[in-house]
């Protein structure tokens, strides 16, 4: 089984994943419209209250947070999509065909990272209308989306592990939505760390969504730190990858053995 063959097959299956996403109104609404509603309503409701407290316009803080939250909550689609592929016979069908075992998993990872990137670009473009700007130039903007991918991959791998573990499809949404909402609130995404009560500040500082949002704020707006939060989110992504990737691969292979009996 050559690497070239796996690559070709994975890209083919990744293309399927991206096409399915683009042709599903429900998924498009979930990943494109909901973050924008969140952005514009938060901006309208709290813009007046927050103005001045964090330095700079509120959208400079809120837009990166909403982009990160979109990447986190979009992982529900990864989990549900992978679960359905596994449990409605598609992967069984693949196994009867002369394709690599690895290709469906790699294809899923590629298509879902593409989706994370696509939705991040769309959200950032919409935030532009509300005054969000990449003040640090094109290279920093690229790094901004790199941070989104690193943060999105954390949730994507967790979603894949969950999809391989749960028995009921309903559990996936709950297991992913509640933690990502919790992370969003107790992060520096809606308000800077100093605005939180003292005893919560260490928690807010340790939150990976804070690191991701701070890194993205630093990479888009002048006058915010970059190196610290970027390092923190890369460490988070590395740590989760080291644990979740082997786990997902193991669960995926064990599933093969179990069904083949």
């Amino acid at each position, binding site marked *: 089984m050559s690497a070239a063959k796996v690559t070709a097959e994975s890209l083919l299956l990744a293309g399927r994943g991206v096409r399915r996403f683009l042709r599903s109104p*429900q998924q498009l*609404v*979930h990943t494109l*419209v*909901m973050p924008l*509603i*969140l952005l514009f*309503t*938060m901006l*309208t*409701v*709290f*813009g*007046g*209250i*927050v103005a001045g*407290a964090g330095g700079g316009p509120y959208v400079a803080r809120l837009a990166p947070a909403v982009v990160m939250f979109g990447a986190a909550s979009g992982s529900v689609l990864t989990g549900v999509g992978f679960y359905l592929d596994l449990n409605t016979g598609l992967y069984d069908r693949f196994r009867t065909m002369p394709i690599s075992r690895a290709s469906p998993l790699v294809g899923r990872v590629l298509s879902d990272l593409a989706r994370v990137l696509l939705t991040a670009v769309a959200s950032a473009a919409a935030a532009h209308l509300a005054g969000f700007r990449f003040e640090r130039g094109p290279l920093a903007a690229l790094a901004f989306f790199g941070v989104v991918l690193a943060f999105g991959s954390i949730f994507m791998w967790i979603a894949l592990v969950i999809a391989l573990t749960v028995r009921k499809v*309903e*559990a996936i949404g*709950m297991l992913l939505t*509640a933690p990502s*909402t*919790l992370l*969003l*609130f*107790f992060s520096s995404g*809606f*308000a800077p760390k100093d*605005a*939180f*009560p003292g005893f*919560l500040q260490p928690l807010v500082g340790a939150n990976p969504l804070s690191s991701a949002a701070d890194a993205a704020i630093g990479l888009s707006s002048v006058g915010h730190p970059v190196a610290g939060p970027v390092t923190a989110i890369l460490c988070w992504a590395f740590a989760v990858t080291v644990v979740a990737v082997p786990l997902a691969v193991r669960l995926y292979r064990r599933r093969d053995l179990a069904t083949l009996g």
Partner: protein
Amino acid sequence: MSVGAGPVPAAVLAEGGAASLLRQSALLAGRNLRVALSVPTVVGMVVSPLLFYFGFLAVFRKMFQAHGIDFGQYLPPAIVVMWATFTAVSAAVLLSRDRRGGMVARLRSMPVHGGAVVTARLASDGVRALISVCAVVAAAHLTGFRFATGPLGAVAFVLLALAFLLVLALGTGAAGLASSQPETVGSTLHMPAMPLLMLSTAFAPASSFPAWVRPVVELSPVSAVVDALRAVADGTGVAGAVLRACVWLAVLLVVFSRAATRAYRRAT
């Protein structure tokens, strides 16, 4: 005369009369609550509203303080109204699921009162919302939320919140009965729910909004209900605020109950 699991007294099965409506609704409401007694729904009823309460409080308390607003007193009515709205949306999803699963059609083929399905739905959602409201008020008490009006004010607060839920659930219920695709019902109703909630005085006073949305915020029925809940809790300007909320609820009740009746007649 036996249905499924056990014999049902003949008196329960009648299509007319207030007594049979009451008994059948109670029976079906019990069934609805048992269906809802799973881990995800309990999380949705109690854990999620508390999460939102403490989340918003942690993020914005200091900033509201700078504007002279005690957010611990300001926020609980917002979370109560937010949860009433989410409960109403889930009522629509559950009704739609009953329609798809054939439950509605089955009940219509039986000698069951025409109003029982919707009444039972409202009754069980009232219970679910009551649990959420009590959880939020209890948690809010820990962070400084007080009824200046005493126990009577607390009762009025809960009743007003339930009235809002029941009226809203009639409207969403009509949407739920009109479609046999629960997923579509859920995502379609969730989308307008969020701006409707946020573009009101629920989370921030009208004066802090940009001038162009202020008229929307001031006119919103959500604002009317939230302002009345706040007035009842704070004991200031109660009569006017409650009257305004009641007028809004009465208007919506007329519109939504007609929609719900029509949707139920058409549902198959």
